């Protein structure tokens, strides 16, 4: 199958406008007749549900949580980028576009990224109108701060809770549409299968997590906004419920999975401290505006940080990247921390941590100014570690945070299954091999507020959709398949819990498919995962029944799908014989240990097609063409 990205012709700056004009429209009176299912209520799903309902479509929205307000977008801390140039510091749509393409190490689509930068300004306007309490200057204007990978200040924020406030804005708009009867909301539902009829996405099967019953819902289009799969690593900054199940079920039904090995490992997280730990906590990248990253110059230095004199500290980011200093992109900052720890210069009990020090900033600006900027983050840090970051430098270490990979989508955000649109972190589209800070919120809301409302209309206006309902035989087939899997999970009655398997999978992925990869390690990981999956299906212990509220069963399903995606991640990493952004294969590096791309052979999106349980997926290539940006070795010096 030839992948068609459907990128419109014409100059980059005019593509989106032209495309919007060329997309067919649905008559306002006819919109009511079209049923759209939206899965997920984070920034992408929440904003899409609200916008589609505002247009008049008949929307059904599903979330796995007890309320749409709890999706994990809520935990995003630092901010959202936009090319407003309010600071008069030389920002522009073009610069945001360029920074994002470069930050992604030239593995994203120019046209998508340009569109993202274009609508970024509309997002801020929309959110202000919704009453999102962004930080303001004394004169009442919107405030900005800096983020990694950029030399302009373009990040809008609401203290350290920007994701929360943007999500509550979208949730407010969604709630308004629920009240108006335009959206029907289904909470505590987990999507377990996509129903495809005549090659088109026509519905979903969900499990009602309270009653345990399986339910069928039919529609004319399905929007998947179910987030990323970073939890495959077991420990990550993702919410406990974040899973790949909905995306993976769609993959099994024919949606290609793109760049699955592109996982963002965020440099500033609270380090791992023990084996029972259930998740990792991010400390916003915005802290790198004022915090200085360092390790002791001498490996094995056991003195407490405050007793190590300036001359014996290695501010390695400032040293190596004077141009960007502590604000290098995430992949560079993470790998640099690993390099320091590998040299034995790590700090703390585990020696897997580096310092993030606010001493100089506090001296310069005063404690109150720092507290106003980062108070809630400092407080969160203290709660977890029982150490006061105003007095002692924070200890940080990289952790899995985001997946740039996701289901393949074209310019319309439609997957390889017609009628299945994929939004936000669940798709692969805009971040290439590394996402810049404050760009996830931008992308989620761009997809939901400003892109899909148009492109879904374009699809519905020209698709010839047969009239179907939940009694169609494909719904029964999907239903039976899902039911059989649940029965199977419950019937194994083995000796190990799902979490126990999950922990082991996480170790494998972190070790062999994490910040540094080697072919031999990846080959080993592939075997280990296959073996672990076999053991899982022989020896997992779930307990309880399928006909009740059963969190243990939910975990088992989640882990089963992570075992599958884990293997696809490894296969993808093996196939990409270059280094780019987050994908650092030891065999491909510059003399200065930076990622060494191979633009001749790997300037493409890798898209994987499911070929059955016992087969490796089939590889498809979407070549990336750069007409406006020159491919260069990324430099942050």
């Amino acid at each position: 199958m030839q992948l068609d990205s459907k990128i419109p012709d014409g100059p980059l700056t005019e593509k989106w406008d032209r495309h919007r004009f060329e997309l067919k429209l649905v008559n306002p009176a006819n919109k009511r007749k079209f049923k759209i299912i939206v899965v997920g209520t984070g920034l992408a799903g929440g904003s899409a549900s609200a916008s589609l309902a505002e247009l008049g479509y008949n929307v059904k929205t599903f979330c796995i949580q007890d309320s749409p307000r709890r999706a994990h977008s809520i935990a995003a801390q630092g901010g959202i980028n936009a090319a407003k140039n309010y600071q008069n510091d030389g920002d522009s749509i073009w610069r945001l576009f360029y920074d994002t393409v470069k930050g992604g190490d030239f593995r994203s689509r120019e046209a998508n990224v340009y569109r993202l930068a274009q609508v970024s300004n509309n997002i801020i306007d929309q959110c202000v109108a919704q009453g999102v309490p962004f930080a303001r200057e004394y004169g009442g204007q919107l405030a900005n701060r800096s983020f990694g990978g950029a030399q302009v200040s373009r990040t809008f924020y609401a203290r350290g809770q920007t994701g929360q406030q943007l999500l509550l804005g979208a949730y407010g708009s969604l709630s308004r549409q629920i009240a108006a009867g335009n959206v029907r909301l289904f909470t505590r539902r987990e999507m377990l299968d996509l129903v495809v009829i005549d090659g088109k996405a026509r519905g979903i099967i969900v499990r009602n997590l309270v009653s345990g019953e399986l339910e069928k819902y039919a529609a004319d289009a399905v929007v998947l906004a179910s987030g990323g799969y970073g939890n495959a690593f077991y420990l990550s900054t993702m919410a406990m419920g974040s899973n790949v199940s909905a995306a993976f079920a769609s993959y099994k039904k024919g949606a290609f999975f793109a760049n699955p090995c592109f996982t963002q490992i965020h440099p500033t997280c609270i380090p791992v401290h023990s084996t029972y730990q259930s998740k990792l906590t991010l400390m916003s990248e915005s802290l790198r505006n004022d915090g200085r990253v360092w390790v002791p110059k001498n490996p094995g230095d056991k003195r407490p940080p405050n007793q190590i004199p300036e001359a014996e500290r290695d501010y390695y980011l400032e040293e190596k990247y004077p141009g960007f200093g502590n604000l290098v992109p995430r992949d560079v900052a993470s790998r640099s921390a690993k390099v320091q720890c590998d040299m034995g210069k790590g700090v703390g009990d585990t020696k897997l941590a580096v310092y993030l020090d606010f001493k100089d900033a506090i001296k310069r600006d005063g404690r109150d100014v720092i507290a106003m900027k980062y108070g809630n983050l400092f407080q969160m840090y203290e709660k977890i570690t029982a150490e006061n970051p105003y007095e002692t430098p924070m200890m940080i270490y990289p952790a899995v945070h985001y997946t740039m990979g996701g289901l393949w989508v074209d310019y319309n955000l439609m997957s390889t299954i017609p009628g299945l649109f994929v939004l936000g972190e669940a798709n692969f589209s805009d971040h290439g091999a590394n996402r810049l800070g404050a760009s996830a919120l931008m992308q989620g809301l761009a997809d939901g507020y400003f892109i899909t409302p148009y492109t879904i209309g374009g699809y519905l206006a020209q698709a010839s959709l047969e009239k179907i309902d939940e009694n169609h035989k494909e719904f029964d087939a999907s239903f039976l398949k899902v039911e059989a899997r649940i029965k199977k999970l419950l019937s194994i009655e083995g000796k190990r819990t799902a979490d126990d398997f999950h922990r082991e999978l996480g170790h494998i992925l972190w070790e062999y498919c994490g910040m540094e990869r080697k072919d031999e390690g990846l080959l080993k990981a592939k075997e280990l995962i296959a073996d672990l999956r076999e053991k899982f299906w022989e020896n997992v212990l779930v307990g309880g029944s399928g006909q009740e509220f059963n969190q243990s069963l939910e975990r088992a399903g989640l882990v089963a799908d992570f075992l599958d995606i884990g293997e696809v991640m490894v296969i993808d990493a093996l196939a990409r014989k270059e280094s780019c952004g987050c994908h650092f294969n030891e065999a491909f590096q510059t003399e200065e240990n930076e990622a060494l791309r191979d633009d001749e052979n790997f300037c493409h999106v890798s898209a994987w097609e499911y070929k059955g349980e016992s087969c490796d997926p089939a590889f498809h290539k979407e070549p990336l063409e750069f007409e406006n940006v020159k491919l260069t070795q990324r430099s942050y010096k």
Partner: protein
Amino acid sequence: MTKAGDKSCINLKLKVWRQKGSDVKGRFETYEARNVSTDMSFLEMLDVVNEEMILSGKDPIAFDHDCREGICGTCGAMVNGRAHGPEKGTTLCQLHMRHFSNGDTVVIEPWRSRAFKVVKDLVVDRSAFDKIIQAGGYISVNVGGAPDGNAIPVPQEVAEKAMDAAACIGCGACVAACPNASAMLFTGAKISQFALLPQGLPEAKKRALAMVGKMDELGFGNCANETECEKECPKEISIENIARMNREFLKAGFL
């Protein structure tokens, strides 16, 4: 990993509310939690207890949780009679076991309120909160026509106050802590956010009447100035917001 006998390791007795579903009777059951590392979070302690229960064929304790970083508002339980446990300004997921001592008995119950039915064990149905928001907890603006973000200046202190109110995570601790199971802190926080901001003014009256009306209709009690909500709120939302809600409500009724 810590071992028994370590200073940083404690043993606890847990008295946990067990209830199969919303329409059956519940009861307390007692469990031992051994070798609990004091670096664990409260939920990680429950994870370990649950793992043991699964392995010994028992039904694990159901509890809601998701982000585990204190922002999603999913987790929450009464711990020794306190919403989210003994630490001020802390959600249950951010409560660490270092705040407990070896040999402690810890009583764990779900939120108790007529408007929050128990789903299972510690899990409750808080959809009433969503219904309050649906009644008017938003600004009616469609996507498309918003003016430039800087077209409406908002004084910094106003933006900060609005943010103080908007920080609510909708966990329900205020309702659980209140002797009247009132939802006034939750409702007041949302009404305040929009009453403070210029964008919220056009609908201020309608919003106050609709949200307060819905809150009463759903069976939440009234405020009797016990201030328990403010004390137990993990985001330390001020009861000032209740006063502001009352003002907004009265204003809306008279004018």
